[in-house]
């Protein structure tokens, strides 16, 4: 199809869709209105289970099954990238040569790295109390490691990130989340039921029952997954070269 015909189709389809969406928007409840029945119930349920961060309660308790699916999507995508970004038949690996890094960059990276790492772990650990949690903290922790690439070089990054260990860590933490779900069934309650542990004192690190455990599993899963994902893309950019080598 030539671009002109395509544009006409887009105008036709997009115009219809725009009309539909605008008509629907005009019928929506007023922005900022007070009526949020599910949200109100979720807040009450979170407080009843001593979880200060309601969003964490929704993610890891009330709708923990969604999070299970979400985590598996990430797990599957990482596995998919491992497959798709493998070394093809007509490619070879060429370890990159070490390179010089400007001293201020090196100093800055090496100072920030531990800070960023600890921040990531803190955000994971406090997921049930304050904004953040496994997903957010996991990403921070994983990207922190990559400051090593900026501050030193690729070989240094590869030393602190044995990729196989992270792949296995990813799989094990995903399995841990599922096993916590099975534990609910085995204990005679429901799948992913938050009834195994006491709910603890409101606003303390140990509050919320199984929420901190699921949150920690997700934090580890996300951190490992992001490390593996970035490693696969970096490999393509830095190590894998076309041609069969020799």
């Amino acid at each position, binding site marked *: 199809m030539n671009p002109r015909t395509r544009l006409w189709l887009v105008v036709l389809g997009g115009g219809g869709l725009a009309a539909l*969406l605008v008509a629907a928007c005009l019928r929506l409840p007023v922005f*900022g*209105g007070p009526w*949020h029945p599910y949200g109100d119930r979720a807040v009450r349920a979170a407080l009843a289970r001593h979880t200060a961060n309601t969003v964490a309660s*929704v*993610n890891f308790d009330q709708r923990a099954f969604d999070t299970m699916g979400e985590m598996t999507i990430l797990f599957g995508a990482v596995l*998919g*990238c491992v497959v798709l970004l493998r070394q093809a038949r007509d490619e070879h690996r060429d370890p990159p040569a070490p390179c010089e890094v400007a001293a201020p960059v090196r100093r800055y990276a090496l100072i920030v790295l531990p800070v960023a790492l600890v921040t990531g772990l803190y955000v994971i650990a406090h997921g049930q109390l304050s904004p953040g949690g496994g997903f957010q903290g996991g990403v921070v922790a994983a990207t922190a490691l990559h400051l090593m690439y900026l501050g030193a070089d690729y070989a240094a990054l590869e030393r602190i990130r044995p990729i196989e260990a992270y792949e296995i860590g990813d799989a094990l933490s995903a399995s841990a989340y599922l096993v916590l779900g099975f534990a609910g069934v085995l204990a005679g309650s429901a799948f992913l039921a938050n009834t195994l542990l006491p709910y603890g004192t409101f606003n303390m690190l140990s509050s919320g029952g199984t929420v901190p455990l699921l949150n920690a599993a997700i934090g580890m899963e996300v951190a490992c997954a992001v490390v593996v994902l970035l490693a696969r893309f970096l490999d*393509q950019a830095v190590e894998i070269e*076309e041609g069969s080598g020799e």
Partner: protein
Amino acid sequence: MTAVMHVLPYLVAAYVFLVGAYGLATSRNLIHAVGCLAVCQSATYVLLLAVGYRDGGTAPVFSDIRPGSRPVVDPVVQALTLTDIVVGATVTALLLALTVQIAKRHGTVDPDELRELRG
């Protein structure tokens, strides 16, 4: 708030969605197309968060406010948005991985130049 503000955030979401779809249909570069897909997805964030907003509401986190002392926004849509973001990131990663391989196998990332799979 004026009557316009009552629907404006929803209309913004619709606009962002349509712009993303337009970009996707007319894209000349697959990396740009993956970006457009992410734009479409951003529209879903905007819509979800707009739907969950409550006038004067704050974050639904009670570590520093007393429950009931202030209105809070809907925590459910925030959780849904988080799920949505993770999904979006993974889809982007996978599509970019496929695009890397397209660039190698076809020598181009322009959809107009991909000549396999016709008819």
